[in-house]
Every structure is written in C-alpha cells, then in structure tokens.
C-alpha cells in the first residue's frame, strides 16, 4: 500500500488551492503546503497574528523581529500584503472570509468534528491558540494528517475521543493514503493514491467509507 511522504501530502493539498484564494495554513505540516503551490497561482496567505500576504522566510540577517507567522518563524510580506490587529485578523477567520484553512489533526470524525488542540494527557498545560476560530470560520476546512497513529490506530473515527476543536466543520481530509470528503451521506473517498484499494484504506479507518463517485 502506498503511503505518501509528508512533502507529497503537502503537494497534494497544494493542487487544490485555487488561484486567488485566501488561505490560512496551520502550524506544522500544513505550513509546507505553500512550498508546493505552483507559481502560476497567486495565493494570499493569512497568518493569525495579523498578516495577509505572508511571503517566504527572509534571508539570514534580514529578519524583522516583529514579522513572524503563527508558528513563530520569521517570514516576509509580499507586495500587496498588509498588517492588522488581532480583532481584525480573527474577524477574517471567524467571519467566513478565508476561502480555505488547512489544519493538522489528532482525529477527525465521520461527521466532520476535528480534535487537534488537546489530548487527554493532563500532565501538560493545555493550549488552544487560534485553532477553534479557524475551525468554525473558514469557508472550507481541509485537514492534513497521517491516516493512522504511529501504532497504526485509525485517526478517522465515528466519534473523536480527544477534546474537540470544532464540530461538523471539516470539509475534506488529506492523508498519506487517500483524499476523503466529509459529506452529508458520510465519508466519501475522493481519491486513492496509486493502487491503494478502498478495502485496504477502510481497514485503517474507524468509520465507514463510501466509494468514490464515478
């Protein structure tokens, strides 16, 4: 069975980012999606800390100490970009102005619930950041995650066991095995990579999968 590498997963998401889209990429693997959006597409990246038009990392020595992204990495601003405060930034997120948000997740449910901010391990203090605002607000919420945990347990489930970030909000799931749409009828496979079969992927999934529409 083919399992995509992280860069291949990011590249697959990048194919579905349309020209002219306003996009928020979550911390971690989603951030790398930008590296694979082809140059003929003008995509405007949003960062929750108050940037539209996020550009690539600056050259060493040219960092602006205030110009970071949500992951606290130094970035640059593209021509046409701008700055704003937290209230305006989250108005963009919560108010449905972003076309697409791409988030990582611990778990996604068949109904489109997402859990990505806390495990049930209470040794560590919790932290939520902007995840819940993104989850409720983006017009389309894409999840980018491995299909299973390290010990091969499914991360796509009937119901999430971890604390929820948002309910009924996920539109599409990109994993290392497949692309899956969350639909009113249930989880519908949109694409299987290489020769992966529905039954192979189903075996690693904790909720029923519908076959791709022909």
């Amino acid at each position, binding site marked *: 069975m083919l399992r995509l590498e992280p860069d291949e997963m990011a590249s697959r998401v990048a194919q579905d980012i349309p020209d002219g889209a306003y996009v928020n990429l979550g911390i971690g693997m989603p951030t790398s999606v930008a590296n694979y959006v082809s140059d003929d597409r003008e995509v405007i990246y949003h960062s929750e800390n108050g940037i*539209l038009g996020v550009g690539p990392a600056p050259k060493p020595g040219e960092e602006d100490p205030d110009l970071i992204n949500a992951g606290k990495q130094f970035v640059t601003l593209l021509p046409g970009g*701008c700055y704003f405060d937290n209230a305006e930034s989250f108005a*963009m997120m919560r108010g449905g102005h972003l076309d697409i948000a791409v988030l990582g997740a611990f778990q996604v449910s068949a109904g489109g619930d997402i859990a990505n901010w806390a495990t049930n391990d209470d040794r560590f203090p919790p932290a939520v950041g902007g995840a819940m605002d993104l989850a409720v607000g983006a017009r389309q919420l894409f999840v980018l995650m491995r299909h299973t945990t390290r010990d091969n347990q499914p991360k796509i489930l009937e119901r999430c066991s971890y604390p929820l970030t948002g309910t009924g909000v996920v539109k599409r799931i990109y994993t290392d095995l497949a692309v899956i749409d969350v639909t009113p009828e249930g989880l519908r496979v949109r694409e299987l990579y290489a020769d992966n079969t529905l039954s192979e992927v189903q075996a690693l999934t904790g909720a029923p999968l519908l076959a791709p529409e022909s």
Partner: protein
Amino acid sequence: MINKQWDSLKSAVADIRDGDVVMIGGFGSSGIPLQLIEALRQHGARELTIISNNAGVREEGIAALLRDRLVRKMVCSFPRSAGSVWFERLYEEGAIELELVPQGTLGERIRAAGAGLGGFYTPTGYGTQLAEGKETRVIDGKGYVLEFAMPADVALIRADKADLWGNLTYNTAGRNFNPLMAMAARTTIVEVASVVGVGELDPEHIVTPGIFVNRVVLQEDRQHAAA
C-alpha cells in the same frame, strides 16, 4: 493574477437583485459612494432594504433611490436631516418601513456580521423606547440590550485609493461606516478616486485589507480625467 478592478459602475452592480439587502457607506455627505448609488438606481432593482446611517437629502444619493420607490425598508440611525424630503414624504405616506438603530449599535451590528459574531450586549438604548421588545441583561450591575449581527447581500462603499488586490485607503473622515460594511456583505463593491498597482500602498497604511473587497470601480469622472 488577482485583479478586482471592474471596468464600469454599471457592470459592477448588475447582479444586485430585487429584495436584496444593500449596505451603503457614508455619513452625511462624507464618504458616500454616490456613483455606485446612481448606478444602482439606473439598474433599477426594487424592494431593496438599505442599511445606511442617513437617508439622503434633496435628490441625491439614497434620496434618489427613495424617489424612484426602489426601497422597501431603511435601516438607519438618522434618516431625518435638513433636506431629507423624499424619506419624509414616503414615511408620511406609509410607503417605507423604518428600523431606527442608534448609530453605535448600527456600526457594531455591521461589524458583528463581518466578524462572525452572532450578537452582543450594548448599554446603548437600555431603558429607552428603542430597547422595547428586546432582550436585556444586567452584567456586573449595568443594564445591556441584546443586539444581533446584521449582514447584507451587497455593500456599496467609497474609498480613496485601491490596489488590484482590493486593499483600500480612505480620505480623512471618509471612513465612517465604509470599512465595517466592507466586512459584512457577501459582495463588497467599492468606488475609488484612484487605482494603483499591487505593492504601491504602504502595508502599514492600508485600512481595509483586500480580503473584504470583491469589486473595485474607478469613479467615472476620474476615468475621464485619466483618459
């Protein structure tokens, strides 16, 4: 390449439909999208709900929409100004519905829609006629009125400069409701005095980020001036 500029006022308003809720920026004569309003009048959509601070004076702006009887309902804070003869006439005839909203509540309801909030508690109007029939709540000993978000189908706004991404700057006190309405409508259409290239507006000085703007139209006299 992203280019939000439309080539005419007429085409920019052509899909506004009968019954639409239309926000119109401006305060008195300041920051009003007069050319977009005139294009909407010529377009002729009817049964409109107009959300705007004022209701126009003489035959200008919103007053011309009223005169042509295109408006079913006005939502505003100060419909009665010196010269607001068309609003007064229709009101007296019972030919128009009025929802009177305190000015700060009007702006905040528009902002709430743009910011994805469902509603808010404001002290404004508590204990007055304008809170009658509304839910109230005492928070930390102070009385508040529950007000709900107010979205729109279309916002017609005016700015000073735009770039092709729809980033906007304004002239002096011409901001008023314009930046808020830009956030709150499904389709935001802006008339501007000039259009510049992407990157020509200082990112620190942009007031309305382009994400809130769908269509940019140059004012017609400016088009002539540039031709």
